[in-house]
């Protein structure tokens, strides 16, 4: 069972193998908790929200198309659940519309050379992450910590692929500025 792809496990669950859902929980619980912690600092909330995510995943599992990738789908549900949680906590609306999604934007594609920078950056950015606007933080977290591709992030956040690239680049710029300001004060 351990060698099975996520999509193959989902197919089994869809056919009625309830135990197979346990495998999906094992594979994604840690990832979803990690992802959730970057949204909220409250540990107790995260436990509840991750449970809520899995309930939604199971309830809606028949809507998943096994010809597509499972991870963007589960992250999409998790993202929406976390955003709803934040809305409840902050009692403030998150932006619905953004000019970034309106126009086509030129952006450099992902490259294999990015891997080293990727690891280094993800270690450095942890503490500065909460300073970022959610619209920049979300794609950055999904790219650096959850290691999703631009295409997958586009699926999760329902924004154009080019906008994903633009927001990640802007997020890096903002983190850099934040890091420089911090080192100057030290």
């Amino acid at each position, binding site marked *: 069972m351990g060698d099975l792809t996520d999509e193959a496990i989902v197919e089994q669950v869809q056919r009625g193998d309830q135990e197979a859902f346990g495998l999906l*929980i*094992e594979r994604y*619980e840690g990832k979803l908790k990690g992802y959730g912690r970057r949204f909220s600092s409250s540990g107790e909330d995260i436990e509840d929200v991750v449970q809520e995510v899995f309930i939604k995943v199971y309830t809606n599992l028949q809507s998943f198309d096994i010809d597509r990738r499972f991870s963007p789908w589960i992250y999409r549900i998790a993202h929406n659940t976390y955003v709803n949680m934040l809305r409840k906590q902050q009692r403030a609306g998150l932006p619905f519309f953004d000019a970034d999604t309106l126009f086509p934007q030129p952006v450099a594609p992902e490259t294999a050379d990015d891997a080293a920078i990727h690891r280094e950056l993800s270690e450095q950015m942890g503490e500065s992450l909460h300073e970022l606007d959610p619209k920049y933080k979300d794609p950055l977290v999904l790219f650096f910590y959850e290691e999703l591709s631009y295409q997958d992030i586009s699926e999760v956040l329902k924004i154009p692929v080019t906008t994903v690239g633009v927001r990640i680049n802007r997020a890096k710029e903002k983190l850099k500025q934040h890091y420089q300001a911090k080192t100057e004060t030290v």
Partner: protein
Amino acid sequence: MTKKDMQNLKEKLLYRIESGEMCMKPKWHFMLKSVLAVAGALLAFVGLVYLISLIVFVLRLTGIAFVPEFGSAGLLKFFLAAPWLLILLAIIFVITLEVLVQRFAFAYQKPLLYSLIGVIVISLVSGYLFSKTPAHQLMLEMARNKQAPLLGSVYRNYDEQLMADLHFGTVTEVKDDQFSVTTNQGETLEIEMNERTRHSDALNIRPGTELIIFGDRDGRAVRAKGVKELPEDVRTILRQNRQPGGVQGLRVPQRQLRELPTRQPAI
């Protein structure tokens, strides 16, 4: 995270599944949702195409489509008399369609501008092509004969819309810089043209020519700001209008003829 924590959540959820407390929604539920989403988008598209074609039809039926050719006064007339209610409704349909289309990956994975331009261009082209079919003409005929209960009043309102400075008529007599026309209401008007009257070089005014005349009226005299020969499709609509039982002149009350209101019809 400890192995125990993981076991806890996994066991808790599997227990809820086994006990029937947590269950999957059936596949047909999602299929129905998808079908409804596609049907909703299609319905909005069909509605939008119909509205656009109706706007094109109304613009031609009332003559407003031709007035921008008559210079700045014509342009002003166009903006004042355009069917803004229908246009506003079409804009609402565009927004609705865009929101519905954004549910699909082919739309949200591309910049919003692309799908918006796509929606507008496809709807405009389809609407224009639909306006070329006899559908609206048939609807208008049915409305005139009170056979279209649902949309009949919309067509009748635009059909009966008369404007003080727009006149449809057939040339009966030609003098130097003046000619007479018989309007669709059976009136005879004397049209005065001067060097400022806008018209195409190809305009050939002779008895029997069907024209649209743009100009202020003073009694039976009209000082023409613009004159244009009516396109064939508009002539057909107006000809039907003059057939027995469909003569606009007989249906429009005399009071309305005298006042020649410029109001926008309500739908």
